[in-house]
């Protein structure tokens, strides 16, 4: 089996999945405009040169040995903030900072994504601690509803300041 097999067999996805994800093509144009392509390429080359000279990149998943390069920063020690949970995802949630706490990165009112990594500790409502495993764990098992205020401890965040990798989370008391 090859990656091409997967790509082709994805063509057999159920119609409702295909329809649900459909892009809004009314606003999109798919005309081949070579001059745009060359202008974009020139701009990309400039950005690559600037980026190579000025931006340090860290591999974002050292525990797995391979990954894609995204700019990440790490604090000297973990900081804590309170976030209102807006929407769950399979590996974390999207939320809004309601109390910046002692954190120096995300002010109150900021929208961000909180990602759980391998080893993120989650204090569940029954007092037990779930240690998140990206291969097995499921955020559905945590059970916190949208609107819950969650205390998040983190040390790693992305350079765009839209993403925090939590080391510990619990419902704010």
């Amino acid at each position, binding site marked *: 089996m090859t*990656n091409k097999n997967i790509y082709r067999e994805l063509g057999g996805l*159920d119609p409702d*999945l295909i329809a649900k994800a459909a892009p809004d093509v009314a606003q999109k144009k798919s005309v*081949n405009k070579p001059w745009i392509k060359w202008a974009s390429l020139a701009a990309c080359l400039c950005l690559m040169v600037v980026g190579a000279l000025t931006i340090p990149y860290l591999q974002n998943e050292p525990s797995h040995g391979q990954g894609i390069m995204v700019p990440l920063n790490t604090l000297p020690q973990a900081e804590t903030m309170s976030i209102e949970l807006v929407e769950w995802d399979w590996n974390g949630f999207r939320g809004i900072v309601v109390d910046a706490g002692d954190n120096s990165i995300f002010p109150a009112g900021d929208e961000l994504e909180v990602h759980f990594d391998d080893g993120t500790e989650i204090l569940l409502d029954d007092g037990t601690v779930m240690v998140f495993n990206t291969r097995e764990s499921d955020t559905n098992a945590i059970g916190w509803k949208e609107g819950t205020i969650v205390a998040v401890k983190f040390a790693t965040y992305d*350079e*765009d300041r839209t993403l925090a990798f939590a080391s510990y989370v619990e419902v704010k008391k």
Partner: protein
Amino acid sequence: MEDKQIVDLYWARSEAAIEETEKKYGRYCHYIAYQILYNDEDAKEIVNDTYLKTWDTVPPGRPDPLKPYVGTISRQLALNRYEAQNTQKRGGQVPLVLDELSECIPDHDSGIDIGESIALRDALNRFVRSLPDKTQNIFVRRYWYSSSISEIANDYAMKESSLTVLLLRTRKKLKEFLNKEGFEV
């Protein structure tokens, strides 16, 4: 016009069926084909071939809804042409998408028989359904529609870096899923 009415036109063998399909889904089919072939003229040909194939298959089929039906035809035809013409040299999303999917399974030169094909298709459906809503839609946009990272990020109001991380983790989940299902990875 509602899909059911368009399908009725196909059953009545009225050429208005093609006109109505073009009005409602022409751009949609063109988008799908263009993302694969990265050429406007080729994409237009695929769209015309899509109408022809729909005409040939309806009846006896009665697709409901019609959108994913014609979309799937466009995707299949575009992929066939892509593989026949070795169009990856033109650019576009397919080489990038294939490269990403190779993380789930290396590009061994091993075939897949029809039984495995059906099993893989079923497994992929179950995997995609297991994903949370937003991740599900983003996964389908990237690997079914072959939409670019920048376009998906824009449509979902996400940073490209966040989107790339999300897709990376989802691909890892897919690899684990396929392993558990007994596919050779």
